[in-house]
C-alpha cells in the first residue's frame, strides 16, 4: 500500500467518527456574524440608539449591561450551535447534523457531489482553519457548508468525496494525494495549466464585468456627493484650477470617474485572483486564488457541462476574456458568475487552447454560421418599438410645443438608426457551429459569450414557431443546458428539426460515461 493510500485510509478512519467544527472558527464566526448583522441593520440600530438617548432613565451603565447581556446570550447560542453541529463520513456518505432550535440532518453521497470549494479568509489563516463547501447535482441551491474545520479534515473530506465521482477513476486507483498547506489541494504530480501574470490580472480587472458592478454599487453615492460638492466647493474657493470651459470640466470629471472605476476594478481583480493558478490533476481541475481571502475550487471534468468563453466590449478591444465552467444548477445568472469556476485573464489563443484541453481538442474556434436574415429585421422592429415607446415618453415629459421642427426629425431618425445598428450587431454576433460532438453558440451585442458543450449534455429542448416563422419555413431552437437556456432563433425549419433530432439522439444514446469523459479517462490512464 502506498503512502497516499495509507493517508487516505487513516483520514477516512478518523472521519468515520463524529467530528466538530474548530472552536477557533466558532469564536470568529460569532464576531463576523455580529459585524454582518450590524452592517445589515445599521439604520435600525442607529435609530434604536437614538431612541435610547432620549430615555433619561437609561444611562451608559444600563447600555453597557444590556450589551454584556446580549454578548452573553450570543456566546451561549454559539456554544449550543457548536455542540449541535457535527459531521462524519458514513462510508462514502457525508452526514451533517446541525440546527439550534430545529435539528436538521443532511446526507450527501459522494456519487452526487459535483463541486467542492475551500475558502480561507485572512482571519482563519493563523489557525489553519478553512470554510469547506460542497454542492450536489441539484446545483448552487444545494450548497452545504462546514463553516470552520481544520485544513487536514477539509483535504481528507475532499479526497474521499471526490474519489467516488463518476469518471474520476479514483475509486479504483487513488492518485498521489493532496499536498499540505493552505494553497495546495492538487497532487504534487499535477501540472500548472494556467497561471495569471500581474499584467494579465490588471487587464482582467479592466475588462471584466466588475467595473459595471462597482459602478452600480457606487451609484447611490452620486447624489450625496453632488450635494456635498454643491455645499462645500464654493466655500473652498478651489475653482481656480478648474478649466474655464464647462464642457472640458465635465469631460475631465468623466475621465476622473472612469479612472477611479478602473482602479477599483483592478483592485477587485487583485483581491479575488491574486496568485491564481489552475492545476491539472487528471480528472480534477483545481484552481487557487485570492489575496487575503484564499479560495480553492475543484472541478470534476466528469461533472463539467458547459464552458463559456466571455469577452466584454472592452475585453474585445484589448483582446482579453475569461472562461466560465458551468455545472448543474448555476443560480443567479451572469451576475453570480464570479462565484463559479472562472478562469480569468486569457487572450483568445489561451482561451481556445484551454477549451480544447478541457474538451474538444481543437486549436481554434470553428467558423460560425449565421441565422436567417429575417431575424435581423425582427430585431430591428423589436428595438424600434422599445425606442419608440421611450421617445413617446420623452415627448410627453418635455411637451410637444417645446420641440423645434429639426427636433422632430432627430427624434424620428435617431431611433431608426440606433435600432438598425443594434439589430445588425446582434445578428452578426449570433452564430453557431457543430464540430464533431460539440455545439458552439455565440451571443451578444458589444460583448460576446460563446457557449461550448457536448451535444450529449443537453437537458431538454423545444422547437418554437411563431405564425411568421411558420409562413417563412423557419423555427427557433431553445436548448436547456446546465447554466440555463440558449436560443438558436430563426433557423431553416428542416435544419432546426435535424439538429434537434441529432441532439436528442446524442443525449439518449449517451451512457453514464460520455465519450468525452471516456476520452479524458483514457488520456489520464495513458499519462
Amino acid at each position, binding site marked *: 500500500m502506498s503512502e497516499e493510500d495509507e493517508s487516505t485510509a487513516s483520514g477516512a478512519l478518523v472521519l468515520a467518527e463524529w467530528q466538530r467544527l474548530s472552536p477557533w472558527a466558532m469564536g470568529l464566526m460569532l464576531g463576523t456574524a455580529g459585524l454582518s448583522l450590524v452592517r445589515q441593520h445599521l439604520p435600525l440600530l442607529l435609530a434604536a440608539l437614538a431612541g435610547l438617548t432620549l430615555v433619561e432613565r437609561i444611562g451608559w451603565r444600563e447600555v453597557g449591561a444590556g450589551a454584556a447581556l446580549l454578548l452573553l446570550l450570543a456566546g451561549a447560542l454559539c456554544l449550543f450551535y457548536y455542540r449541535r453541529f457535527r459531521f462524519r463520513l458514513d462510508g462514502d456518505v457525508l452526514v451533517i447534523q446541525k440546527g439550534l432550535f430545529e435539528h436538521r440532518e443532511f446526507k450527501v453521497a459522494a456519487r452526487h457531489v459535483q463541486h467542492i470549494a475551500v475558502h480561507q479568509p485572512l482571519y482563519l489563516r493563523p489557525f489553519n482553519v478553512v470554510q469547506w463547501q460542497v454542492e450536489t447535482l441539484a*446545483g448552487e441551491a444545494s450548497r452545504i457548508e462546514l463553516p470552520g474545520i481544520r485544513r487536514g479534515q477539509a483535504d481528507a473530506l475532499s479526497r474521499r468525496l471526490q474519489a467516488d465521482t463518476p469518471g474520476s477513476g479514483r475509486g479504483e486507483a487513488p492518485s498521489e494525494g493532496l499536498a499540505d498547506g493552505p494553497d495546495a489541494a492538487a497532487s504534487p504530480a499535477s501540472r500548472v495549466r494556467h497561471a495569471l501574470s500581474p499584467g494579465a490580472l490588471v487587464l482582467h480587472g479592466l475588462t471584466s464585468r466588475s467595473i459595471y458592478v462597482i459602478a452600480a454599487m457606487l451609484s447611490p453615492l452620486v447624489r450625496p456627493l453632488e450635494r456635498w460638492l454643491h455645499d462645500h466647493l464654493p466655500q473652498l474657493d478651489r475653482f481656480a484650477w478648474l478649466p474655464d470651459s464647462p464642457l472640458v470640466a465635465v469631460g475631465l470629471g468623466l475621465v476622473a470617474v472612469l479612472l477611479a472605476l478602473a482602479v477599483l476594478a483592478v483592485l477587485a481583480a487583485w483581491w479575488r485572483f491574486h496568485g491564481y493558478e489552475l492545476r491539472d490533476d487528471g480528472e480534477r481541475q483545481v484552481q487557487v486564488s485570492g489575496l487575503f481571502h484564499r479560495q480553492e475550487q475543484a472541478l470534476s471534468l466528469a461533472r463539467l457541462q458547459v464552458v463559456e468563453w466571455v469577452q466584454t466590449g472592452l475585453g474585445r478591444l484589448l483582446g482579453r476574456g475569461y472562461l466560465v465552467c458551468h455545472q448543474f444548477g448555476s443560480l443567479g445568472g451572469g451576475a453570480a458568475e464570479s462565484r463559479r469556476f472562472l478562469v480569468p485573464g486569457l487572450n483568445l489563443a489561451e482561451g481556445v487552447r484551454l477549451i480544447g484541453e478541457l474538451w474538444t481538442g481543437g486549436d481554434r474556434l470553428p467558423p460560425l454560421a449565421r441565422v436567417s436574415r429575417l431575424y435581423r429585421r425582427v430585431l430591428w422592429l423589436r428595438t424600434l418599438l422599445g425606442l419608440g415607446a421611450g421617445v413617446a415618453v420623452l415627448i410627453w415629459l418635455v411637451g410637444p410645443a417645446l420641440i423645434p421642427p429639426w427636433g422632430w426629425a432627430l427624434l424620428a431618425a435617431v431611433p431608426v438608426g440606433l435600432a438598425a445598428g443594434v439589430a445588425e450587431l446582434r445578428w452578426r454576433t449570433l452564430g453557431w457551429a457543430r464540430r464533431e460532438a460539440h455545439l458552439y453558440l455565440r451571443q451578444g451585442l458589444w460583448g460576446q459569450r460563446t457557449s461550448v458543450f457536448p451535444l450529449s449534455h443537453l*437537458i*431538454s429542448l423545444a422547437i*418554437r414557431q411563431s*405564425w411568421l416563422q411558420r409562413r417563412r419555413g423557419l423555427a427557433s431552437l431553445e436548448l436547456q443546458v446546465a447554466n440555463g437556456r440558449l436560443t438558436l432563433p430563426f433557423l431553416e425549419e428542416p435544419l432546426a428539426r435535424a439538429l434537434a433530432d441529432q441532439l436528442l*439522439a446524442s443525449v439518449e444514446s449517451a451512457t453514464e460515461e460520455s465519450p468525452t469523459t471516456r476520452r479524458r479517462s483514457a488520456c489520464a490512464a495513458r499519462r
Partner: protein
Amino acid sequence: MTFRNQAVDLEALPTLVSLPLSPVSPRLAPCQALLVLVRWLVVTAVVLLFPVRDETLALWQPWLAGGVVGVGLIAAALSWVEVRRRAYGLREHDLVYRRGLLVRRTQVLPLVRLQHVETLSNPVERAFGLVRLACFTAGGRGADLVLEGLPAQRAEAVKQHLLARLSGTPPEPRQTEETP
C-alpha cells in the same frame, strides 16, 4: 474498458416530425377557460368596486368593467382554442409536449435526464378529473416540463412508466397502449 465511438447514422435517426402526438383530454378546454374567466372576474370586480372620486371617471367605471369582461371572454375563448390543439407523446426515450396557438412550442424531455416526477391538481382540475404531471431534471429551478390535461388514470399510468424508466426496470406495455 474498450473505447467505442461509432458514427451515428443520421438518416436512421427517429424524427420529431414523424411522431404522432395524442391530444390532451378534451375536458382541459372548459377547465382552462373557467380558470381564465375566474382570473378576469377578479380583475373586473376590482375595476368595478375601486373607489373613484372623479365623477366623470365614475360614470365610465361600469363601461371599463364591461371592457374588462369582454377582454376576459376573448382570453377564455382563445385559451379554449389553444388547449384543444395541445398534444403530447411518449416515446421510448423521451417525452414530447406541444402547445401554443400563435406561437407553437414543441418541448422534448429526454427520459435519461429525468430526476423525479410529481402529479399536481387544483380543486377546479379535480372537479374535471384532470391532473398535471410535472417532470424535474437535475439542477433545475422548477419543473422542466409540465404536462397538463391528463385524466387521473392516464397521469398515473404515465407516471408509473416514467418511474419505471427512472428505476431502470422495463415498463409494462399495457401502460403505454392506453388511449386518451
